[in-house]
């Protein structure tokens, strides 16, 4: 059977479809996810419960959801500046790592400090570290016209090796039985938790504040307007006299600082020291979060919670269903596939004859 499909570019840009398509993508992911469980000889309904419902059916679970969603939301909010501007910073994982190295380095440098200024200093340097690492692709792009996708990606791996160097080398804990990890940060360098006994920390407030600031920037400021115009048409932006190179710098620095902040929050919050695997792919997964949230600050908060659930569900699935926790990546990949696919319907009307 042959379908003749005709496409027509939409003239009436539909807001409804634009915000509905993430929901469709999530629904399709759940459907296919159940199908995968079925193939693996697991009861779809039971697995579904273990994956998506039981992880957040108690306070501990809810707290963990926020622990995972916080870095994702902060990074994705930062990335939204770049993506809005059609700049593809895909090196957030490296910027996160650099933030952890800079901010965490401060914590290790003053490891006997009890000062209340230690944590703010670490947070500041975390953001600086991320911003510094993001400035490199920005400089290379504006000065030498290099492709920022490739350079930011390459720099990610450089950053990971730098972290590796520090934790097996100069920063290795002498009392750590030779394990590749640093000594723990002093208590003054730990992020305060919101509820005693749970791991959810004040990073949540930062995420919400960044979300609000981002919303205001996007909807009320000239800078936000410039980003929007440049994203729609770089020619229109040039014609309006917006300085494209400056926009590249600002967006890279903002997204890098956010990623660095998230990295510092991870190490000074739940982890408490530096070691090799500080991030389970948060920097890359945040790209999914940003797209799924439609680059809208509030959308990003929602999608960060959803994607955080795939991390939690995957951990429970490993525990109770004996399937590798990497199953979370399958869901993350699927949801992005479906989202990108359904986006097609935003742009085109499809007629089947």
């Amino acid at each position, binding site marked *: 059977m042959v379908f003749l499909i005709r*496409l*027509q*570019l939409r003239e009436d840009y539909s807001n409804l479809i634009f915000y509905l398509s993430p929901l469709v993508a999530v629904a399709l992911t759940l459907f296919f996810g159940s199908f*995968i469980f079925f193939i*693996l000889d697991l009861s779809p309904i039971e697995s579904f419960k273990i994956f998506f419902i039981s992880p957040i059916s108690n306070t501990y679970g809810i707290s963990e959801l926020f622990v995972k969603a916080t870095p994702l939301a902060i990074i994705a909010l930062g990335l939204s500046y770049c993506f809005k501007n059609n700049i*593809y910073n*895909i090196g957030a994982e490296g910027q996160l790592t650099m933030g952890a190295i800079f901010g965490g380095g401060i914590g290790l440098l003053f490891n006997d400090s009890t000062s209340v200024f230690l944590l703010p200093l670490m947070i500041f340097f975390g953001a600086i570290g991320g911003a510094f690492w993001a400035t490199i692709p920005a400089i*290379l792009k504006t*000065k*030498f*016209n*290099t*492709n920022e*996708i*490739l*350079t930011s*990606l*390459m*720099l990610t*791996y*450089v950053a990971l*090796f*730098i972290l*590796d*160097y520090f934790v*097996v*080398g100069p920063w290795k804990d002498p009392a750590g039985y030779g394990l590749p990890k640093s000594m723990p940060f002093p208590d003054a360098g730990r992020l305060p938790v919101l509820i005693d006994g749970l791991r959810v920390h004040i990073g949540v407030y930062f995420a919400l504040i960044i979300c609000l600031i981002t919303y205001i920037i996007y909807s009320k400021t000239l800078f936000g307007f410039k980003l929007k115009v440049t994203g729609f048409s770089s020619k229109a932006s040039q014609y309006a006299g917006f300085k494209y190179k400056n926009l590249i710098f600002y967006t890279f620095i903002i997204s890098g600082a956010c990623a660095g902040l998230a990295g510092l929050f991870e190490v000074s919050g739940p982890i408490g020291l530096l070691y090799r695997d500080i991030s389970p*792919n948060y920097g*890359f*997964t945040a*790209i*999914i979060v940003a*797209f799924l949230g439609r680059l809208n600050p509030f959308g990003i908060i929602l999608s960060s919670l959803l994607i955080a659930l795939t991390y939690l569900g995957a951990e429970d699935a490993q525990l109770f269903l*004996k*399937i*590798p926790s*990497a*199953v*979370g*990546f*399958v*869901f*993350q*990949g*699927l949801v*992005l*596939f479906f989202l*990108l*696919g359904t*986006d*097609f319907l935003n*742009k*085109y009307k499809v007629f089947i004859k």
Partner: protein
Amino acid sequence: MNIDLVIGILNIVLISTTPLVFAGIGELVTEKSGVLNLGLEGLMLVGAVTGFITLVLTGNYFYSLFLSIISGVILSGLFAFLVLNLMTNQIATGLALTIFGIGLSAMLGKKFGGTPIDGLNPYYFIVISFLLVFFVAYFLSKTKTGLIVRAVGENHNSAYALGYNVIKTRYLTIIFGGVMSSLAGYYISICYAPMWQEGMTAGRGWIALALVVFATWKPWRLLVGAYIFGGVAIMQMNLQAIGVKLPGQFFNMMPYLATIIVLVFISSNKLRLKLSAPSSLNIPFEKNQ
């Protein structure tokens, strides 16, 4: 320094570099047609696990190779459908493919971790990898079809106006790249290791991606670059062994740093960039416009 040691090291370099050549040459052809596929790592892992599972279950090398290739065709076909027909963002789609592949391969291979197999002789694949580079170099520079691939990658609108089928060309180059990545994965799990372990490609997909840029999209340079990258990795281990006090991480980041330097060098000059990089790389082709 005795001769046996030198030969031994060269042998290891030869064996360990081959997956980079496979994945790199495939991605080179894909990128020459104007598509950037960031899904190499995922494709390699799925290719590795499919081949491995099939070999364990059937004991037949031919079937395992065949299914590994099929896995590459299916996954890269999916990627092609998304970026070519649905015109999705190539970066996001490629990352989705990698993330999906990492998860899928771990799930499929769960029961097979640690299963012993009889590995294949790597030298067949090493020879094939050299022939492949020769073939691709010849194909791109001397054949009409190769010229069409390059035309599509340089300016898809002109190529379309001349009557070439941009979508079909890119489907074929993407699938070629996907199959090459699967073969790289197959080589790792069947010849190089030989075993299956979650995430066993260990970032080779990203190095292969860097390699294509490092080689400025030229097949022979890719072969040389692959052996430089592979050689540096092996040298690092051996220097550590004889007590050189340079941190190993420094060697590990060399391929990435070298790629950035090459990228700066070619991009800083407009003409040089035009002569090296495919101009339509990562730009979606929209026929309806």
